[in-house]
């Protein structure tokens, strides 16, 4: 009886809130919402589907199709899906799927209303992210195989459905990352990652791989099963929303809002900084030792990594996998190879972030009263050694793994020629360039106002393009460096060395001017 009264009161309270919220200035009217739905449906029909179809048909090339037709392709699909689920589980700890703005977290989620009543909408919206990701990849694979006539429409459709189920399950994992505390979350992530490794090794595909367009057999059963389990898992998460801790919700909400504000004002570095883990362990490790100054800084950096173990492990794994991707890219040809090189470079760039806090600290001392005995520029140089050595070593290892795995998959002549040493040397060569770019990125000041000056044209305001370039300059420079080194690597070790020297020198020159601007 009292439960029914509670529910009635809650419904009334929610209706009152919705009515107040809907009457705010700038609120979307029903017509606005209808227009939005119309716009989304039209965009999918007119833009997304034709673009996907064009990309899928473009991928129907002799250097892409064999990869999609490989025996290992179905089980690789399952392995990747499981690894992505493990990653989402960890992401849930810093940015979960059920998130409101800080104001609504403190007013609604902390009030007497059930949390699920206010959190289910953002949760469902977030789950659409992995679902969209999975279905996009599945659609591309399906279209490519359909184009070359290696599958039929029905098999491609089952795979697409299976990918929806996989996306839903990944959404549930993301939620678990937000719900669970540290240790169980880490254990579950490790279990999922190990399952991924196992699935990659076992020849009989299960999960989404079993619905792969070439798998045949039980595609329909697997697709329906995955959709059913995925829907059930997401439905089971909804009552779980009540179990989310207020402190977690508020911390994530505030962090996300700070990051969004920084990102929308063009300060992507500050946005990324809000998600950087703080040291919480290893305080007894001896970070300060004797010896020359360069060793003092290197040791301090290395010990500091041990104080954020989760972040460092993710960084090392990311750097290793990225080096693998780079190696694979250098051993292959065509769009897949270039995609692998781009993904490898971007992954290595992202992974390097875990190891350059010393460099960031050095740059932050610019313009402040001196505490340390070295100027900011000298500090940055001294902080250069440790991350370069680590990323270089992990890069070499990843390159060797790429050689080994390619050899295992396609026979001993998997690479051949200059590509074999390049697969190992390029990830190593990329390390000093990326660390130099990190100094350059850390010294980035606020966006110059003149970039925001409107550029009216018949096609609309084009000022967004210089702003986008300014915001993503580090990523563009990293991609350019990766591309140049990949080309240099295929030409020989000397060219590669020359490329590294020229790139580092160029970055140093650009960084010098940034240092001057920050100091002035």
């Amino acid at each position, binding site marked *: 009886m009292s439960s029914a009264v509670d529910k009635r009161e809650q419904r009334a309270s929610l209706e009152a809130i919705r009515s107040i919220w809907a009457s705010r200035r700038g609120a979307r009217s029903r017509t606005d919402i209808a227009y939005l739905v119309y716009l989304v449906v039209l965009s999918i029909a007119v833009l997304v589907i034709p673009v996907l179809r064009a990309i899928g048909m473009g991928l129907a090339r002799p250097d892409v199709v064999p990869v999609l037709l490989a025996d290992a392709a179905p089980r690789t699909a399952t392995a990747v899906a499981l690894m992505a689920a493990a990653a989402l589980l960890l992401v849930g700890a810093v940015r979960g799927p059920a998130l409101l703005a800080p104001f609504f977290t403190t007013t609604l989620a902390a009030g007497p209303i059930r949390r699920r009543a206010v959190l289910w909408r953002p949760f469902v919206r977030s789950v659409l992210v992995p679902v969209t990701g999975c279905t996009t990849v599945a659609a591309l694979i399906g279209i490519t195989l359909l184009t070359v006539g290696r599958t039929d429409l029905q098999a491609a459709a089952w795979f697409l459905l299976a990918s929806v189920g996989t996306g839903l399950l990944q959404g549930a994992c993301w939620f678990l990352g937000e719900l669970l505390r540290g240790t169980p979350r880490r254990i579950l992530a490790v279990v999922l990652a190990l399952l991924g490794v196992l699935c990659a090794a076992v020849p009989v595909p299960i999960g989404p791989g079993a619905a792969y367009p070439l798998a045949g057999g039980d595609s329909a059963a697997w697709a329906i099963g995955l959709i059913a389990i995925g829907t059930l898992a997401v439905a089971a998460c909804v009552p779980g929303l009540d179990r989310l801790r207020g402190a977690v919700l508020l911390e994530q909400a505030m962090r996300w809002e700070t990051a969004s504000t920084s990102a929308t004002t063009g300060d992507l570095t500050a946005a990324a900084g809000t998600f*950087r883990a703080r040291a*919480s362990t290893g305080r007894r490790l001896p*970070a*300060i030792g004797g010896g020359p100054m360069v060793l003092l800084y290197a040791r301090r950096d290395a010990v*500091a990594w041990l104080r954020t173990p989760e972040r460092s492990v993710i960084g090392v794994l990311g750097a290793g996998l990225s080096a693998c991707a780079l190696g694979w890219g250098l051993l292959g040809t065509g769009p897949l190879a270039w995609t692998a090189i781009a993904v490898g470079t971007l992954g290595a760039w992202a992974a390097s972030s875990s190891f350059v*806090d010393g460099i960031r600290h050095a740059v932050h001392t610019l313009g*402040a*009263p*001196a*505490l340390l005995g070295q100027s900011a520029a000298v500090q940055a140089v001294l902080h250069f050694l440790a991350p370069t050595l680590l990323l270089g070593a992990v890069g070499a290892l990843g390159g060797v793994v790429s050689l080994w795995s390619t050899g295992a998959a396609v026979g001993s002549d998997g690479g051949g020629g200059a590509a074999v040493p390049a697969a190992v040397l390029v990830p190593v060569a990329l390390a000093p360039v990326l660390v130099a770019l990190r100094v350059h990125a850390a010294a980035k000041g606020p966006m110059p106002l003149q970039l925001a000056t409107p550029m009216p044209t018949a096609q609309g305001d084009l000022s967004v393009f210089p702003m986008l370039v300014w915001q993503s300059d580090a990523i563009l420079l990293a991609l350019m460096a990766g591309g140049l080194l990949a080309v240099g690597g295929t030409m020989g070790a000397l060219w590669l060395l020359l490329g590294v020297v020229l790139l580092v020198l160029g970055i140093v020159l650009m960084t010098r001017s940034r240092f001057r601007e920050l100091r002035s």
Partner: protein
Amino acid sequence: MTPPNPDAARPDGPAVLIDQVGVVFDGAVLLVEATGSVDPGGILAVTGPNGAGTTPLLRTIARILERTSGQVLVRGRVPDDRDRSFRRSLAALIGPPQTARDLTIAEHLQFIAATWGVRAKDASTRSEEQLAELGIAQLGARYPHELSSGQSQLVAIALTLARPFDVLVLDEPEQRLDPDRLGLVMGALQRRAQDGAALVIASHSPRLVQELATEVLEIQE
């Protein structure tokens, strides 16, 4: 002991000379005019109402802000943060210091000392002494983000005192400190002055000004 400053033997005269210094920034008058000086071993207290320009004056001495008129000399030289001997001479706490998120407080003190050439073992001993001097030995194993507001202020002062200097510039060191802690800080500053350092302190604490200052520069609005 701090390592000897190779440039210590500067010409006789005040450690810090402030001569009719005015600061205008982007059309806004931050400091109308200030004149004063402090000799080695002396403590110059800079006082004045909020907005009078005490902090801009300190920033000018530390060369974080450029003066518009007048002259500032630190140990007979025009302040320039590109000048290594100037950086070696002057320590300043104006706003929160840039701490590393992955070093403990004791390690910050050791690292600062080591970057100025102190041996690792000596740096460790000194860091313990400095923490004890300000009554914060228990904070040595904490990370900067694990401190309260008052503790952060004490740590900021400890970090500034951890490096060598001939001139020490402090902006309102009394902020967020209880009377006992303020007493400890004042004792530490007094000892630095007795060792020959010149101190320039902007303060709103009558107790600090009365008990420490050898000279007072009052800035009018």
